[in-house]
């Protein structure tokens, strides 16, 4: 049995992860009918049912209720077709008729999905002037950053610091306690401050690091809250009342 829907043919008993290849039992059934090139109005039920079960097994979907229900339905249709029909009976309702109707209906809908997919993708690539979040804003896309951009950003930080001084031995290690004292003193005067208030423009690297660690430490002790409203914007530091009370 060939399976054009999957990249590689899957060996017996191997683990398959492409559970979402099919959007449901009707999808699977339709693809079987296409692959086997059978007339949708004259489906060889026994044959297709066998293929269906084999595919279910192959895709490790033995426990998917919707697929099991379809398998049971196929077997029932087969059983109905085996029932003897009396000679001269006026009308015989093909037990496959309902299945054929559902398959055609589903196939029709798949065609509409293709149209929607094309239209939606086109529209997705255009922004309106004010994209207003409707009910809940979708989570931000993960930050895509190339190595070059990262290095440029690092370079910018180092440049902004006065004289990197690669050869100088830093006379004192990072002074987190000192920075904590500075931040506390600042927040004693004002309810909120910004990163720029804590770190001078010409700060040494160790001062920048001390300030950063101090802010993180104080945030951990819930003495203050940190917020950055937009990517790359200035960091806001707010006094946390709960921390004061504690």
């Amino acid at each position: 049995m060939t399976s054009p829907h999957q990249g590689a043919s899957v060996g017996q008993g191997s683990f398959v992860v492409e559970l979402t290849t099919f959007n449901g039992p009707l999808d699977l059934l339709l693809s079987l009918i296409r692959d086997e090139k059978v007339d949708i109005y004259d489906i060889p039920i026994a044959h297709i049912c066998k293929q269906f079960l084999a595919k279910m097994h192959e895709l490790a979907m033995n426990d998917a209720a919707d697929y099991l229900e379809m398998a049971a339905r196929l077997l029932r249709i087969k059983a109905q077709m085996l029932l003897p029909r009396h000679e001269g009976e006026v009308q015989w309702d093909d037990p496959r008729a309902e299945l054929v109707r559902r398959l055609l209906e589903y196939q029709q809908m798949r065609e509409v999905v293709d149209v929607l997919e094309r239209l939606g993708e086109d529209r997705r690539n255009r922004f309106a002037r004010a994209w207003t979040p409707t009910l809940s804003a979708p989570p931000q896309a993960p930050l895509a950053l190339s190595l070059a951009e990262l290095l440029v950003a690092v370079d910018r930080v180092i440049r902004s610091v006065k004289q990197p001084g690669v050869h100088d031995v830093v006379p004192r290690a990072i002074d987190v306690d000192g920075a904590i004292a500075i931040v506390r003193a600042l927040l004693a005067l004002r309810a909120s401050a910004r990163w720029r208030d804590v770190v001078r423009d010409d700060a040494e690297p160790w001062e920048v690091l001390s300030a950063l660690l101090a802010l993180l430490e104080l945030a951990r002790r819930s003495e203050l809250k940190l917020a950055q409203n937009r990517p790359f914007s200035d960091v806001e530091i707010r006094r946390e009342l709960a921390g004061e009370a504690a």
Partner: protein
Amino acid sequence: MNSLAKLLEAALFASPRPIPTDELRALDADASKAAVQSALDELREHYNVDGHGVELVEQGGGWQVLTRPEYTEAIERAQMAVRPHRLSGAALETLAIIAYRQPIGRADIAEIRGVDVGAILKSLLERGLVDVVARGEGLGRPLLYGTTPLFLEQFALRHLEELPRIDELSIALRSSEPATAPATAPVPAVSAA
């Protein structure tokens, strides 16, 4: 550009949603429908000919100024705007069924798709693409769903009639009323007993 075109441009800039032609007419009591239409044409032409990063598009039941697709990636990279997530195949199937059969209940959608659609319906509701539009007559008065204006907007449709008609699809159901009557499809090739 004439002054009406400029007025329309300002209104389109100010509105977060597409504005229908009829509503644009309210901007200027003296403007005829034809005048608004020709001003819109002028504005669209202005964007196209002079080479702008945005263009005037009619969709989602009205007119809207949208960025051109070639700038999307740069804008998204700079995190100034984020594209909505792509819908899954299952979500698109559900949406297609609702678009064509609205108002329709959950059970009927599941019947067509062959799988339960509870979770997908919920996410479509959250994204504002569908909404409860009525209640059915049947047992338990089931909620019936329909598409929203946002659906039109996100699929660049002017109105629902712009979707391909059922008889335009290559696989048209032979039954004349597929929407309501699950009539037995004709089954010609039945081998005689």
